[in-house]
């Protein structure tokens, strides 16, 4: 089936469900958090404004986006369970097409959230007067990396949400992943790479240095973490292939 048509249909089915409201609420809270964090910074700190913002958002994302994605995806999948809609739908639409359309639809919402974060950073930078030029490369990299992590989580949670009628399962999986995202920085490097939400930080273009003696924070750009990026991409591809195949075998 035509992928564009399937995607349109997904948005049609989203009527009255207000998925964007969750995304908008989370984005607004994140924007306020950023503005709050910048409230009494001096000129030298503001010089690091862009890097500070990118770093802060990536950390925040690792905690908040898994939860938000869980809510979003489970709401999107629950409409198929309530009223046993799949029994009729699958006589008209291939199951793989539905799987893809749902994933795309979630992806578009997540891209909007990350895009809104970048817009927020640029806007706050303008208002607060971040003195360095806009780090275009880091911004693009940030967008790509944060979206990649979110897509992986969305896919993982979508597989759970479609498989189980009880939406408590994907919702709590989202919560747990968010919690692990919070804890990830305390894990050893190897273990950290097994936590999907840790990749928000691992793939972020900006890292932080905490100087204990001087009690100062400095941010710096890191080289592109090509191995981590490939690892997550490979995991995404495998999960997609496996999850889609399982879903297509499903009897309704």
């Amino acid at each position, binding site marked *: 089936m035509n992928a564009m048509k399937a995607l349109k249909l997904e948005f*049609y089915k989203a009527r009255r469900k207000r998925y964007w409201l969750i995304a908008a609420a989370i984005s607004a809270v994140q924007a306020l958090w950023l503005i709050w964090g910048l409230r009494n910074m001096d000129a030298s700190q503001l010089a690091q404004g862009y890097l500070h913002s990118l770093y802060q958002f990536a950390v925040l994302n690792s905690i908040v986006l898994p939860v938000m994605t869980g809510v979003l995806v489970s709401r999107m999948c629950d*409409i198929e369970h*309530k009223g046993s*809609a799949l029994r009729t739908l699958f006589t008209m639409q291939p199951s793989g097409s539905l799987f893809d359309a749902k994933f795309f639809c979630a992806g578009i919402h997540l891209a909007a959230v990350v895009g809104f974060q970048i817009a927020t950073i640029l806007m706050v930078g303008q208002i607060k007067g971040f003195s360095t030029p806009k780090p275009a490369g880091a911004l693009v990299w940030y967008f790509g990396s944060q979206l990649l992590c979110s897509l992986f989580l969305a896919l993982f949670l979508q597989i759970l949400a479609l498989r189980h009628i009880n939406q408590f399962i994907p919702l709590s999986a989202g919560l747990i992943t968010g919690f692990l995202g919070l804890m990830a920085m305390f894990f050893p490097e190897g273990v950290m790479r097994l936590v999907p939400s840790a990749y928000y930080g691992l793939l972020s273009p900006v890292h932080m240095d905490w100087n204990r003696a001087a009690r100062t924070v400095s941010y710096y750009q890191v080289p592109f973490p090509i191995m981590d990026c490939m690892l997550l991409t490979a995991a995404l591809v495998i999960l997609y292939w496996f999850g889609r195949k399982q879903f297509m075998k499903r009897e309704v």
Partner: protein
Amino acid sequence: MDYCITTENLTKRYGQEIPVNHIHLAVPAGAVYGFLGPNGAGKTTTMKMLLGLVHPTEGSISVLGQNVNEKNRLSILRKVGSLIESPSYYGHLTARENLEIVRSLRNLPKGEIDEALDAVRLTGTGNKQAAKFSLGMKQRLGIAAALMGRPKLMILDEPTNGLDPAGIQEMRKLIKSLPAQYGITVMVSSHLLSEIDQIADYVGIIRKGELVFQDTLAALHAKSNCRLALRTSNNEGAAALLPKAKHAEGWLILPQLTDEKAAAASLLLAQKGIGIVRMEVREKSLEDIFLEMTGTEAAL
């Protein structure tokens, strides 16, 4: 004869359980085929396999003259409407929006939605959210969705389940009218013998996954053959003369006889001086036949 559905050795296994066991269905075109069986007999599983919602373990299916496989399944199903078990709908969407999804997926003209709503008398409630519908209305919405695109075949699984008596009568009337009014062949399942008796032209009876009867409704009725039951002045003597007769509580039950044979039997008894004291006609009811075939009391 022209068949809308045929299956060969259609089988579904779940571990040890075989809910559908080597079934050869033959659903003739242009009529109502009643698929009758007690709860758990395998009706739903069979119908889901016809629609590709459940994957057969074994066997083949042909629908509307084409062998169904994973590639051509959806294109064949464009001409098949279905309603399986409980209603299937998006609760947060209105009836009209639910049908719009069907319309869009099947590339149908806009007008089909109103026609379908009209056919099930939901025109006035088209803009109400389906979750707020009564069960009967949801079921009618399901029928409307199944009618979209003027299917050649409708597969309806216990469509009267859970409806109130008025709803049941209305649904039965609608189903009965489909072949004549829209040229639709209907395969409808039920665990109610009386329901199938009312609406079907052909009957398939399934018992524990096996098809135990498949023919016209008239042929099923013909099984309720008339037999003569006699009480005579000397039952022992009469039984010796009529070796095929069976004893039952002081009665002799004769097998089904032609008029000539019945006459010959009575003359024979008279010649041997055995008088007929009582005589009655015993007819097996459809319920008895159903009971014999399915091992279950017929639900009425």
